[in-house]
């Protein structure tokens, strides 16, 4: 516990030293909210209650998907090796980082939601809080996978590969436009991506329905995703240890 608290605190302090980076992480979804939102809400496709959950998933995928970039420098400067030689558990070394990433994401998500309310979001608070929980769990899995990728693929390839991977996953999730609009083939493809289930669950939670099959599916898929992501992440942190 000492190790986890120390690591998370350390990474949080480092993140908030650059407040600019924390704010900047939320800028892209804010643009979508302010510039795309008014169009979307008058398009007849859906309301702010459809858009805001989608933008939250987008934020989760984009920012957690790229967190691995930070570990590249830790690896280069010997920081990672130094941490790996301590008795701290490998899963703790990973979880300390991931926990920080999730907390930063949570702050950014709250900003988006507050702005959403100002623009016309009508979601109930309970649904929003449950939705934030789901989003946090999802981001843990995504961040763990991002670190695993950063430690596995060549340094200079990490950012292009991840951003190229995350965009189709985000579009296929229906985060921007719901998959109910999709032609049959696209709908089928999207069902093979994990984030579609999270997006739909988040929309239902925001709409005030907490125990529908859609929500249960979303929770189930997200739990499997986070379990898989964290297992892979820990494996990579353990790699080559005795």
């Amino acid at each position, binding site marked *: 516990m000492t190790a986890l608290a120390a690591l998370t605190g350390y990474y949080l302090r480092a993140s908030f030293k650059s407040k600019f980076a924390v704010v900047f992480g939320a800028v892209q979804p804010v643009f979508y909210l302010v510039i795309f939102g008014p169009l979307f809400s008058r398009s007849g496709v859906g309301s702010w209650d459809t858009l805001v959950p989608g933008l939250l998933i987008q934020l989760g995928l984009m920012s957690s998907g790229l967190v691995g970039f930070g570990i590249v420098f830790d690896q280069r400067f*010997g920081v990672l*090796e*130094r*941490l790996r030689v301590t*008795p701290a558990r490998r899963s703790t070394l990973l979880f300390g980082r991931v926990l920080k990433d999730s907390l930063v994401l949570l702050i950014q998500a709250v900003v988006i939601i507050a702005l959403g309310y100002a623009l016309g979001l009508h979601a109930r608070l309970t649904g929003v809080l449950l939705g934030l929980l789901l989003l946090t769990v999802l981001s843990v899995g995504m961040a763990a996978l991002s670190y695993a990728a950063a430690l596995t693929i060549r340094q200079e390839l990490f950012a292009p590969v991840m951003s190229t991977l995350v965009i189709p996953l985000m579009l296929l999730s229906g985060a921007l436009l719901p998959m109910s609009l999709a032609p049959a083939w696209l709908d089928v493809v999207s069902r093979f991506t994990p984030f579609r289930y999270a997006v739909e669950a988040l929309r239902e939670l925001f709409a005030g329905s907490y125990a529908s099959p859609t929500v249960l599916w979303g929770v189930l898929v997200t739990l499997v995703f986070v379990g898989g992501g964290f297992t892979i992440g820990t494996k990579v942190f353990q790699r080559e240890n*005795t």
Partner: protein
Amino acid sequence: MIHVRGLTRSFDSVEAVQGVDIDVSKGEIVGFVGPNGAGKTTTLRMLTTLLRPTSGTATVAGHDLFADPAGVRRRIGYVAQGGTVGPFSEVGEELVLQARLYGLSRADARDRVTRLLAELDLTGVDKRLAGSLSGGQKRRVDIAMGLLHRPELLFLDEPTTGLDPQSRTNLWGHVRRLREEAGMTVFLTTHYLEEADALCDRILIIDQGRIVASGTPAELKAAHDAGTLDEVFLSVTGHELREGAAA
């Protein structure tokens, strides 16, 4: 303190370490000497639980390397060759984090860091960014990283590479003091033979993945009828240290 038999490590089909036996007693300063690419760092990373050996047995600081790596980690310090801190990180914060990963409370960690910095003539650098330190200071910060939990056994990988002669001699003094004051066992790699001669009680010469000679500097010189360790090295390996296989 270290008992190793038949330790090997292959990368793909290349056997980087080809069955080394190592015995180090408590309180010894042992130098692991060889050219770049001889297998020094690979061996060190195996002994510090960071790299899985292909075969062999090893007990390090009283714990089996394979059965109890966490037990080994608790009792050893390891200072890697490439440094331990990024240039934009504050030295004190990094040291406190490291101490807490060894289980110290926040207050104990701060206290330990202050004392350790003083012992290494680094008082006042805790608020500075690592990138602003001199080479010698930065190297001592790296060494501090490995000493926070008062290990019984300290591994130093090329501790003086890239340092000017004065910083190097200064660092030797610190290493000697660790042994004298804390009874620490030190296992270090170097490719400076004069360093091994001046600092180490005993030397293991490694070349192309095998230990080709071992003994005190005096024993090695006597056995090969040589005046310097450079001549010993040439005699046992057939080549000069500097022109060894590249990394």
